[in-house]
Every structure is written in structure tokens, then in C-alpha cells.
């Protein structure tokens, strides 16, 4: 298949793996921020192909996973309280366990919760049922936020009165800073998310090289992209450089997608946000600007407080900080499976545990 097979070429992959083995000397801890990178690493067996001194650590890069337990419980409380609303959400949110329930269970109990594939679908739901309030729980990073911002503008343009949005959007660079500041996890460099960076631009990571002296490579998601990204990062480590480099040049620029950023800025402003495992990170979230207050569910409804407690035994919090690998969690593959997930990282298709489980990493050999 054109534009895909070129990036899965076996001989080139072998060549890059050999080059990595050739240059790598130091023990290196690399964090891949993005859940899609984790997925690709597991799917193509990349972890096992690398020298033992290179450790790949999955970061807080799955939007459903980083949504705090408090926010999940708040949504559950909300649909219990507001029985007449339609809550629209992305599919992965349905099965994330809160305290004693999930949106999936609330749906089974009679709440009207609908899965949408695109934020724009929410407009059609609202237009076809004008007598009912439709609320979209918007999760996602800088990749999803512009699409939600565009949907909010479209809702305003169409004059829809029965629709609102609950923004749980989060920003990537502040989370990277928080991880580096915490000092809890030893990080030597980052594989930065390709599609987030396509929006925000690689310049957004300048502070990581200037303030923290950690190298960053923005990589694509095909196996050759990931391997080349790792090679570029290892080369920086071995040569003592800490620069921002773009491997994913066919998509990513230094300045990003101005149009997407503008639309995001027009609708949202930054706010503090609570991340699962990490806790509150200043200015790491997006809230809807007051000019669009009518479309902001947080202003339109009095949302209940949600208890911010993790499922007992669940390691998702420490996993999202890079402190624990999925197979180090006592629940992984035993009490916690994709069929009966105990934490969000096993639910979401971008979740680290789901990737490890699906592709047999950490399974008994």
C-alpha cells in the first residue's frame, strides 16, 4: 500500500536496528509520550529488537487515560442527576471504571449516553432532538481540541440552543514539564508525539532542551518512523547533544498548523487541569472562553463534584508517570483485562496496558 509499505520495509528496519546497536553504549531512558507510539512499539515488536540498555517508557499520552478519576466520577454523577440529557462521548470513555460504576453501566441503567466518532456528529444529535439538552464530554490533546473548537463554532453558527460542551482537553508540553520537575522518573529524552506536534509545532519543546537539557525527537507512527526517531535520539545521547529534531518531516513543521492553533485559541483558554496519577498541573488544560459561555456545559449545569479515587490496586496513576510498566502491575492480565478492565490504560485503544496486553508483551512466555 502506497505511503504505508515504504515505512514498514523490512530491510530498512533491519538496517536501522543494526545502526542503533552500533552506536548505543549508555543506558538510556526514553519516554514516548504518545499512546500511538506505544501501540506501534508493541505491535511491531520494537522493544525486543533494541539493545538492553535502551529502556522505552510509556508516558501520559492517552487522552482517556489521563482524564482524572474525579472527572470520570463527575460525569457519572452528572448523568445520574440530569436524567433527561443526552451525553455524547468518544467510545473509549464508556468503559473507564469510576468509583463503582462507568458510563457504560449508567447507560445500561437507562441514561442516554451515545458514542460518537466525530465531534461534528454531536451537532446532528442536537439538531434532530431540539427538545433535549445534548452535552459532549470533550477529551483529547492538541490533536482533538481544534476539531472540538470548530464544532463549537459551528454550533454557534447554526444557532443550536440545546447543545453544550464539557471541555476536559489537555495540553502536552505542560505535562512533560511536570514530569521533568517531579524528578520521580529518570528521563533522558523524549520521543515527541507526531500529530500533536503537527498542530503545536516542534518549537513548543524548546524549553526541554534549553532548561532541562534533554533531547527530543518528533517521530511518526510507522515502525520505520519510530525506529529512526529512536536512532536519532540515541545518537544525540551518545554525542552529548540535547536538541529538538524532527523525524516526521512529512507532517511536522517548527511552527505547527497555524489555522488549527488559531481556532483553538479563539474558543479555548488555558486553565489548570487534573491529570490521573500526576495530579493538578498548572495551565495544562483548556476551558471554553466566556464568549462561548452558552455552549459551556460547566457554566450551563451545576456539575456534581467527583471523588478523585483510584480503583484499589490499579497502577494506572504511576504508569502514566512512567514509574511502572504494565507487567509490573499486580492486576495486569489477571484481575485487569480488556474484557474486565480495572483502569483506563486497559480500556482505551491508546492505553499502554491495552497495547502490552494485545500484543503479548509481558505475557508469560
Amino acid at each position, binding site marked *: 500500500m502506497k505511503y*504505508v509499505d515504504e515505512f*514498514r520495509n*523490512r530491510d530498512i528496519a*533491519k538496517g536501522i536496528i543494526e545502526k542503533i546497536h552500533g552506536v548505543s553504549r549508555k543506558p538510556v531512558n526514553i519516554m514516548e509520550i504518545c499512546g500511538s507510539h506505544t501501540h506501534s512499539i508493541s*505491535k511491531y*515488536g520494537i522493544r*525486543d529488537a533494541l539493545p538492553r540498555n535502551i529502556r522505552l517508557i510509556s508516558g501520559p499520552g492517552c487522552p482517556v487515560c489521563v482524564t482524572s478519576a474525579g472527572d470520570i466520577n463527575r460525569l457519572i454523577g452528572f448523568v445520574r442527576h440530569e436524567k433527561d440529557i443526552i451525553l455524547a462521548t468518544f467510545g473509549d470513555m464508556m468503559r473507564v471504571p469510576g468509583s463503582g460504576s462507568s458510563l457504560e453501566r449508567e447507560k445500561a441503567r437507562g441514561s442516554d449516553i451515545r458514542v460518537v466518532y466525530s465531534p461534528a456528529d454531536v451537532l446532528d444529535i442536537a439538531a434532530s432532538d431540539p427538545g433535549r439538552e445534548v452535552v459532549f464530554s470533550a477529551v483529547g490533546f492538541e490533536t482533538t481540541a481544534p476539531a472540538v473548537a470548530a464544532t463549537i463554532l459551528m454550533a454557534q453558527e447554526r444557532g443550536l440552543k440545546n447543545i453544550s460542551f464539557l471541555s476536559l482537553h489537555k495540553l502536552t508540553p505542560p505535562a512533560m514539564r511536570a514530569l521533568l520537575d517531579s524528578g520521580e522518573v529518570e528521563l533522558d529524552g523524549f520521543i515527541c508525539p507526531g500529530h500533536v506536534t503537527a498542530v503545536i509545532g516542534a518549537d513548543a519543546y524548546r524549553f526541554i532542551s534549553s532548561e532541562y537539557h534533554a533531547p527530543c525527537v518528533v517521530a511518526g507512527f510507522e515502525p520505520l518512523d519510530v*525506529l529512526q526517531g529512536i536512532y536519532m535520539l540515541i545518537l544525540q545521547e551518545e554525542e552529548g547533544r540535547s536538541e529538538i529534531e524532527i523525524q516526521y518531516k512529512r507532517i511536522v513543521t517548527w511552527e505547527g498548523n497555524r489555522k488549527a492553533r488559531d481556532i483553538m485559541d479563539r474558543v479555548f483558554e488555558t486553565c489548570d487541569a487534573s491529570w490521573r496519577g500526576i495530579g493538578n498541573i498548572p495551565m495544562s488544560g483548556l476551558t471554553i472562553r466566556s464568549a462561548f459561555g452558552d455552549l459551556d456545559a460547566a457554566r450551563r449545569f451545576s456539575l456534581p463534584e467527583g471523588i478523585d479515587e483510584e480503583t484499589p490496586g490499579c497502577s494506572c496513576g504511576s504508569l502514566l508517570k512512567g514509574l511502572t510498566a504494565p507487567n509490573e502491575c499486580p492486576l495486569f492480565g489477571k484481575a485487569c483485562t*480488556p474484557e474486565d478492565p480495572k483502569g483506563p490504560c486497559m480500556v482505551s*485503544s491508546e492505553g499502554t496496558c491495552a497495547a502490552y496486553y494485545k500484543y503479548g508483551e509481558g505475557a508469560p512466555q
Partner: protein
Amino acid sequence: MRDRQILLGHGSGGKLSHMLIREIFLKAFDNEFLAPLNDQAVFNVPAPRLAFTTDSYVVNPIFFPGGDIGKLSVCGAINDLAVGGAEPLYLSASFIIEEGLSFEELEAVVSSMAKAAHAAGVKIVTGDTKVVERGKGDKLFISTAGIGVLKDGPVLSPSLIRPGDLIIVSGFIGDHGIAVMAHREGIRMDVPVESDCAPLHLLVKDMLSAAGGIRAMRDPTRGGLATTLNEFAASSGCGIVIRENDVPVREAVRGACELLGFDPLYLANEGKLVAVVASDSAQAILKAMRSNPLGADAAVIGEVTDEPPGRALIETAIGNKRILDMLSGAQLPRIC
């Protein structure tokens, strides 16, 4: 009968039921075993060993590119018999119809079943009809059972699988899953994908006459190729290693999977089989398969190994190996 719809009365057992049976089912399936409309079909079987199978079909939508729920229900029963090495003879068919289904749609499904059965040389000899209230079903559910006869010889079974055996798949995988999903979700593709729904008994016959050495066969329906390979590995206690690059997948199916985040190895097939064969028979079997249109794209995709016992591995496109697990959860619901 245009514009007429199924009413609850058509399932009452009374006059309307009888009319439905005569005008729709008997007319389409007519044969000497069904015609007396007894509570059971009575027939002789030309062999001492029988194979018996049953399956239910709930696919949504009931018509899709390359087939419909009727063709699926007949081919499904035939294939479940065929992959055990049996020659399919007789089928039963039970219909659970939602009130309000149009006669036109029911007739189209029934005629498609009759056509598929006739083409495959099997007879639908007994059946049942129930009607449920509107909203309590989804247009139409069909359940078929099938009886086939087996020649003497060992029964094909994953327990016969040995290290060194080869894995053959009969053609492109994933067509059915993508065809139904794309049609259901209204996704238009430049190259439309049709369901591969087809009866496999003649292909199996060709394979069995080509050479001995077939250990086990299965049709990888729900759960796809990956799930079938895991079943083989678990039942035999052997390892299975396949090469991702050797698995036949159409460009259009690969494209749809890339776009939608599906893995073709987990997509349902309705006209494909996977066979584990002794390595010295593989070439003869492959040749026989390729001369049948339903096996034209057959390929050896991997082999049986000692390690890891009971598990399947895949050599990925870039040459690394990883575990190939069974399907977790539902990749696509209501696909067959």
C-alpha cells in the same frame, strides 16, 4: 405481495403462518423431505459417520455487498461441516422475524438461501418461524443446523497438529468484516469490498483428494485468522508462527483497516479456511486449492513449531516477532 409486511399473526401457528410457510418457504426450498410439512424430516444417510453443526446469524444490515443474511446462514452451516471434512447434505433453518419486516425483504433472503443451497447441492429439509413484536428483534435472525456425511479415515482435529506442519490460508482475509462494516457505517471506498461469503465444501473436497496430511481445518469467521490460529495452538499444545507479510490481504481492506484502526487478522471471513497440513503434502494441497476459484489466492503463511507451546507468534512486517493473541472484546459487533 409488494408492500405487505410480516404481522404477529404470521407467527401464530394459524392460517397466516401456514400461508407464510407455503407461499414463501416451501415455494423457495421445495424438496421431497420438506414438502409433507411434518414436524421432522426423515431421510436415509449414505454413510455410517455423520457431522452435525448449528449456528445463528444476526448480521446487521441483513443485505450487504456480496451477500445477505440468508446466503450467510446457508454457507455458514456448509462451511462448518466442510472444514471437518464432511460432505454437507441437509440443513434446517429457523427464522425469528421482527414484526413489520416486508415480505419483499423476507422473500429476497429466502430466495438467496434457496439459491445458495441449490448451488451447493444441499437441501433445506426442516424449519421453523417465529415472529416477535416490533422493537424486540432486528428485522431477521436466522439459525441453521446442518448434517453432513464423513468418509472413513481419521477425523480432522487440532490434536493431530505436529511441529513442522505448515499453515495455509485459502485466500484474502478480512473482506467480509470490512464489507459489512463499510456498508453499515456508510463508508464509501474507491474500490468497494464485497463479502467473501461462499460455500467451501468443494474446495475441501479438492484438498482432501489432492493428498493426505491435512491435520485440521477451520473457517476463521468471528475473531478472524488470529483467533483460529490461537485455537489451533491451544488445542495442539504446539507453537504457531506466521509471517505478517505472507498473509493475503486486499489493498482496499488494508486501507480501510489503516483508516479505521482495525487489524485484518481479527476480521471475520465467511468464505475462507485455514488448514494445517503436513509439510510434505503442502505443495500438492496448495496446487489443488489454487486450481479452485475459491482457493485461487491460497498461500502458506507460517508453520507449526515447538515453541512457544500453546501460543501463536507473528513475524511483523519489519521482521520482529511478537505474540499474536486472540481477539479481546468485540472488534466489530453483529458481523455475522
